[in-house]
């Protein structure tokens, strides 16, 4: 078992989840409450990674991060090395790839909060931020948990984007899914199976936790 790949994958998934929570909340807030007439275009862009083949997304991310793009050049000037095929590049690609899996549950749960409650909050003198943190957020807990868990689980399992943007550098960009692919290529079916089972188990546990938190009537223990 390649524990280094596991550690790297967990690190990546955790980082992506944190970034998506921090960045996804304002995006979801804007998508929910903006009355901009071209908002649907922004919504379509956010949803793109769901339908786009990961190789397509990965390809363009690679171009954008490469030494010929302004971003890649700026990075090279600032840090002294190229951006492509690094852990940072991998994280950027993963954030874009998992964006809809965070933003859509966030936005859906914001939209499900009764507009009357927001109106009531305003008539009681609360500012928009206060209304958001005291009313919208607490009533959107299930959507927040879902979005965070999906971001995490989706990053665990990604393959195409990783391969395009990160390559396959042990300890830097080799994630579990790449590791499984390598083992299969090397006809190490037993090794691939062991790794795949662990990944399967982790994803199952994460999703179970999501559905458990989202149960409408929550007793202390499911078997009670």
């Amino acid at each position: 078992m390649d524990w280094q790949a596991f550690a790297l994958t967990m690190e990546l998934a955790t980082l992506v989840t944190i970034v998506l929570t921090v960045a996804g909340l304002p995006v979801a807030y804007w998508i929910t409450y903006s009355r901009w007439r071209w908002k649907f275009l922004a919504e379509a862009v956010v949803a793109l990674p769901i339908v786009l083949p990961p190789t397509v997304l990965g390809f363009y991310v690679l171009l954008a991060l490469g030494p010929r793009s302004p971003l890649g050049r700026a990075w090279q000037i600032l840090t002294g090395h190229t951006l492509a095929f690094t852990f940072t590049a991998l994280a950027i690609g993963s954030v874009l790839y998992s964006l809809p899996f965070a933003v859509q549950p966030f936005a859906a749960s914001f939209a499900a909060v009764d507009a009357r409650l927001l109106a009531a909050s305003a008539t009681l003198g609360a500012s928009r931020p206060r209304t958001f943190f005291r009313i919208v957020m607490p009533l959107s807990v299930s959507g927040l948990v879902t979005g965070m868990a999906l971001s995490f689980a989706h990053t665990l399992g990604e393959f195409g984007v990783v391969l395009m943007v990160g390559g396959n550098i042990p300890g830097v960009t080799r994630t579990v899914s790449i590791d499984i692919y390598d083992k299969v290529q090397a006809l190490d079916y037993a090794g691939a199976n062991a790794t795949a089972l662990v990944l399967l188990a982790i994803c199952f546990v994460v999703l179970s936790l999501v559905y458990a938190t989202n149960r409408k009537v929550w007793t202390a223990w499911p078997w009670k």
Partner: protein
Amino acid sequence: MQTPAKIKDSEPDEPAPKTGSSDPRSRLSIQLRKRFAEFGLQTDFSAPLGITILFGPSGAGKTTLLECIAGLTAPDEGRIAIGQKILFDSSAGINLATQLRRVGYVFQDLALFPHLSAEQNVQYGLASLAADVRRQKCEAILESFRIAHLRARTPREISGGERQRVALARALVTDPCLLLLDEPLSGLDAVTKSKIIDDLREWNGAHGIPVLYVTHSREEVSALGERVVVLEAGHIIAQGTPHEVMTAPRQETVAQLAGFENIFDATVIATHEDRGTMTCRLANSEVEVETPLVRAVPGTQLGVGIRAGDVLLATIEPQGLSARNLIPGRLLSLSQRDVVVVAKVDCGVEVEVHLTLAARDSLALSPGKKIWLVLKTHSCHLMA
């Protein structure tokens, strides 16, 4: 249709509320226009301290009017002010944000925060105060609305009447300069309702702010109102004390709201200036009734409203009556509604008459029976 100028003229005579300060500076004044797909809202009125009932059929624009006042929706043009404080003024480009208006609003569905306890709901609007002041104010209002024992429960865990009290307390504890109540007592039984109304009256007596109270319940109008404004299709069609508005309806909407089961189109046939009466023929019939005199000439079209409970019913032709209208007819149908018997009578026009159960039994009424309707002149209410 009354003109806005007329409405304004009648205001200075308005009696001040019995208790509380009658500071004219905190009077609510509204002139606004807002267009919709179906109709336009166009109102111009002002509300003094005390409870003003906003009355009208659903879809008349009552809730929209409240939302404009609270800043939840913006009028197309106009001006809304509480005393000197301008909430909205299209000509000056002022549109104060809802959270800065200090307008208490109790929504029709209450909009209590489901994840907060009753106490947290009540304290929600007091965030700017020091913790001990906040607790003290919250405590006082919980006591005065008799919900202190519910403080730790969430809205889901308390009854409908208790929820209504929490919603009222939450809005009132912030010391608003205006209170908007959108059918806050709908769906409550009469006893709970009248208890809450008593608490509200008491609170208002002590604080004295303008209160706009939306309802379409007649009981609430007479229990609460010092003043009624009737809204129909976005326009004010009548205003005054509940007694004035309800007993002398000139508009058909008011008439229906005030409980006229029978409304007929009629034509004036003759006026009797010396006797203060006139004779009207009901539309599409030979039925003539004597009604009070209004400024009209023969040929004038108007409406006549008659309460079903004001009509007497006789099975043999009565004699020696002071009532001026005796109309023969035939009983069409009888049906029972709660403890009231509803009789439909055909006498050229169809008239609804309400009887007691005992009257029905002692008269041995049955459909097809020949009967006479007896109607006093002043039971015929004329409408424009």
